[in-house]
């Protein structure tokens, strides 16, 4: 038999993120003891080449060195002479599909059309299967939209490479950094960002030949490596209904070879399809142990040779680490020298797969309108808001000394007007009042607009309260909040404050005493509750029954003549919209409990959101209004809701103008522009994107800088002073040109600092 059946198996990497070649060889050796198994590898560093089940190893030079045409001819020759080929390398499978567009009877890998149908993240072939695809966008969309996507999914998102790699990016800074790394590694701007699904990981592994599903196994992971790879699992039969759907899908795709459908099952039992691997998975031999030898079944069907089928040894499998002897003909290579002063032996992927991806990429000019798999992606948002452009037209930048903060009066008026419309759920019993958080931007123009728009002023210090009174607010329209509201008390205006929210039980006791003595007056006395289960340093903690009881006892001591209120605050832009929504519902429960135990009716609820302006704008605040409608159901005594949109109002109202000091051009087309602005004037650069516009001198139009390969360097002698990465500079850019960084009206303004100015 050995002379009659030769099977080439590629992909023998056996590290912590292994390829399935060794597992396939073990399964085929069990099914075809006399077959000749030839391992194919592209690096002698892949330890799988030493695995004992291989009769021979066909070692190639790494992909980056390989003459692909010659390699293709050699593979074709072997197939034509009767050998079979099972590939375990996604990129090799894609390449083979190009070399053999109509397939080859002995090539046991899927065809080009089938591969396109399972391309991630959209996986068009999922239609008809009882699975959903987690929502995703490609990184071709604007930074503005990427940030919105991350907020929508609570920053629980994965940045995925076009072929391999998925990296958790829990904040904007990480996302920018990894986008740059992956884009460079895979030589593409088209990565994808996909929402995380919480649940248990499962897979369907199958084998098919010319569109006929031969067998299928359902694997539930029981143990995982640190990289989330299978370490142990249950191998189960596939439910008949799912099997039927898979059979139809495979037939439609005319699939040949192995495949793995990687999924997550959520708490409600819904299956989410993450990826379809066009090959057997690395745990393939785990299935063989449980009585389903899919590689042997595939080869049996393709060759007509009968395989030896052994009974199941177990219904489950697990892995161990084994040492094996090194083949004499492939002695181990030395370790690379550590880089000067470096730690560890930093090495590239041994087989040059990344370089191979780049080669493939070069051969297939990508469509910039697609997600890398020629599937057009929807655009999410508008361009620069019209009000920004209106405001910019009214600013004569020739008279502005940069870096300069620009006030957008039209935009500001619009923001306050729109905010007043948010949460239109007022009833006779419930009044919605908005409060302007002075700390977001204490600019007098904004404070006066807040006053004109009927807002309260929320102050975190007596100095802020004094600023509010200077802008026309009387004490009755000031809300005192924060942990240090009595710092420099002598600056505190006199009068009866609208509300005072205490940050600790200690403060609550002091304030209660002062209210009793008449030393302090307030229309409402309340507490700020620390957000449970979300890390915060603010407010009174309730994360143990004892703390909860202490809080209740303190509330009971408050003067009953003054209405009671509760405040909570968490930036939805940081924790995400969905999580904030849950926090809100959770806080309503806690407030209900506080009310019940303290015997004090909650009459005022102060909600701080830290929303991104876009999250409010997109649905005209309807989602927010829906949440407010829940309040009377939980807290029937609430008569006033104080809503603090925070930076949602201030952020769009200002921009920062910077001038180009110098342009540095490099080979390959990338540029660096040294700006006269810096992170000192734009401190939120690390936390959210800023839309950058430049005026076209010919058309006189303001245009947004698109993504490109240039970097805007701040003027400071600080390594991290980079105010924008991956932007495309205007073709005619020159020193003296002005770029305007929009969306800089909130903490960029209030937290900016003087640096490097002597």
């Amino acid at each position: 038999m050995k002379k009659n059946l030769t099977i080439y198996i590629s992909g023998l990497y056996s590290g912590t993120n292994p390829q399935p070649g060794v597992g396939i060889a073990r399964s085929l050796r069990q099914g075809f003891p006399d077959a000749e198994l030839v391992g194919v590898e592209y690096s002698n560093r892949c330890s799988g080449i030493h695995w004992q089940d291989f009769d021979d190893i066909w070692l190639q030079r790494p992909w980056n060195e390989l003459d692909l045409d010659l390699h293709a001819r050699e593979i074709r020759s072997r197939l034509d002479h009767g050998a079979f080929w099972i590939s375990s390398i996604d990129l090799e499978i894609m390449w083979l599909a190009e070399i053999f567009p109509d397939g080859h009877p002995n090539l046991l890998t899927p065809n080009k059309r089938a591969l396109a149908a399972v391309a991630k993240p959209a996986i068009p072939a999922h239609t008809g299967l009882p699975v959903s695809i987690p929502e995703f966008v490609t990184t071709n969309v604007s930074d503005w939209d990427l940030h919105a996507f991350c907020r929508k999914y609570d920053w629980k998102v994965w940045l995925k490479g076009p072929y391999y790699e998925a990296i958790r990016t829990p904040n904007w800074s990480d996302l920018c950094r990894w986008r740059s790394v992956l884009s460079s590694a895979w030589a593409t701007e088209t990565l994808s960002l996909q929402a995380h699904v919480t649940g248990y990981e499962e897979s369907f592994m199958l084998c098919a030949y010319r569109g006929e599903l031969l067998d299928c196994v359902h694997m539930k992971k029981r143990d995982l490596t640190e990289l989330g790879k299978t370490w142990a699992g249950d191998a189960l039969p596939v439910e008949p209904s799912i099997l039927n759907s898979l059979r139809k899908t495979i037939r439609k795709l005319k699939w040949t070879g192995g495949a793995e459908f990687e999924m997550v099952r959520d708490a409600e039992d819904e299956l989410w399809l993450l990826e379809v691997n066009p090959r057997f998975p690395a745990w393939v031999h785990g299935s063989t142990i449980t009585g389903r030898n899919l590689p042997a079944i595939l080869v049996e069907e393709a060759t007509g040779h009968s395989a030896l089928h052994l009974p199941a040894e177990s219904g489950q499998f697990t892995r161990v680490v084994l040492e094996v002897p090194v083949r004499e003909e492939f002695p181990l290579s030395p370790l690379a020298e550590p880089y000067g002063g470096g730690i560890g032996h930093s090495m590239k992927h041994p087989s040059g797969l990344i370089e191979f991806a780049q080669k493939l990429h070069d051969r297939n000019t990508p469509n910039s309108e697609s997600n890398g798999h020629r599937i057009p992606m929807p655009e999410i948002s508008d361009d620069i808001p019209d009000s920004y452009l209106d405001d910019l037209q009214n600013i004569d930048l020739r008279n502005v000394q940069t870096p300069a903060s620009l006030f957008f009066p039209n935009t500001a008026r619009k923001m306050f007007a729109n905010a007043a419309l948010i949460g239109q759920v007022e009833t006779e019993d419930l009044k919605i009042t908005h409060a302007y958080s002075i700390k977001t931007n204490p600019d007098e123009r904004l404070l006066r607009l807040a006053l004109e728009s009927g807002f309260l002023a929320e102050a975190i210090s007596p100095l802020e309260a004094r600023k509010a009174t200077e802008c026309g607010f009387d004490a009755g329209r000031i809300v005192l909040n924060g942990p240090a509201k009595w710092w420099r008390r002598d600056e505190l205006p006199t009068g009866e404050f609208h509300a005072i929210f205490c940050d600790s039980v200690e403060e609550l006791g002091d304030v209660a005493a002062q209210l009793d003595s008449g030393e302090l007056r307030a229309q409402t006395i309340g507490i700020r509750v620390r957000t449970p289960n979300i890390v915060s340093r603010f407010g009174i903690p309730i994360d143990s029954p004892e703390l909860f009881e202490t809080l209740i006892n303190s509330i009971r001591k408050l003067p009953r003549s003054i209405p009671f209120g509760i405040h909570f605050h968490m930036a939805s832009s940081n924790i995400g919209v969905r999580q904030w929504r849950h926090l809100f519902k959770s806080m309503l429960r806690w407030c209900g409990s506080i009310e019940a135990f303290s015997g004090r009716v909650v009459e005022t609820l102060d909600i701080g959101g830290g929303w991104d302006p876009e999250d409010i704008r997109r649905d005209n605040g309807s989602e927010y209004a829906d949440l407010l409608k829940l309040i009377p159901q939980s807290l029937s005594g609430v008569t006033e809701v104080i809503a603090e949109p925070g930076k949602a109002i201030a952020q769009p109202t200002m921009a920062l103008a910077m001038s180009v000091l110098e342009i540095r051009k490099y080979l390959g087309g990338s540029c660096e522009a040294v700006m006269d602005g810096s992170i000192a004037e734009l401190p939120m650069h690390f936390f959210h994107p800023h839309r950058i516009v430049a005026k076209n001198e010919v058309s006189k139009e303001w245009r947004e800088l698109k993504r490109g390969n240039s970097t805007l360097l701040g003027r400071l002698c600080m390594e991290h002073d980079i105010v924008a990465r991956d932007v495309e500079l205007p073709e005619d850019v020159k020193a003296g040109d002005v770029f305007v960084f929009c969306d800089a009206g909130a903490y960029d303004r209030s937290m900016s600092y003087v640096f490097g100015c002597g």
Partner: protein
Amino acid sequence: MYLDAGREITETAVEHVTISAAPKEVFEQWKEWRPAQISHHGRICCEYVREWVGNTDFSALNGGKLEAGPRWIRQRFEWGPGKYPIYWCEILKRSKLDCGVHATLAHEAFTRRGIKAFRTQLVQEFSPCATAQWRSGCDKNDTAPTWIGDDVIYHEGCSVVGSGGRLKLWDSSAGWWIDPNTVTGYGSLRAVRIVATHAETFQWGNHLLQTNEWTSL
């Protein structure tokens, strides 16, 4: 895993079974046991804690789905054999809580979320080596080892009825859903009883479970 030792009916039943040389069923020695309870003083001291558990559970969902297991309970309250009666206001004063208390807390969490849940009694297989260790732990902590057999133990969890009427079994002391296919070997589930106010039948994996009836798996 130790529970109800303070209650007369349980002690009697256990003593009766200990003298039995060969139990017919794996659950025999615990078949008269009722699920553990956290007692309530009928005062605010206990109500604080109970309310806190419900609210904390909802907060800990963190935007996740209501049917997710309340894993925070085990993370917050380490497992260890305990004594009964135990009151709500005491649970945070104990350094460790047993499976009966864990299961009661999980049941409280699920039902407050609006999910149909049942207290569930379990018999799990381990090994003589493991049971000897637990017995020794009980001796040191002065707690009764009545939940420990030769190579099996009495355990408690919580059954929940999820979407589509599907039954799932939550091991609140482990923080995972019990696998219906693992019915032999170390750590496997050998018998189960769902405790309910009225008779109902549920499919759990390949097993048909009648409420209030012990089922050997």
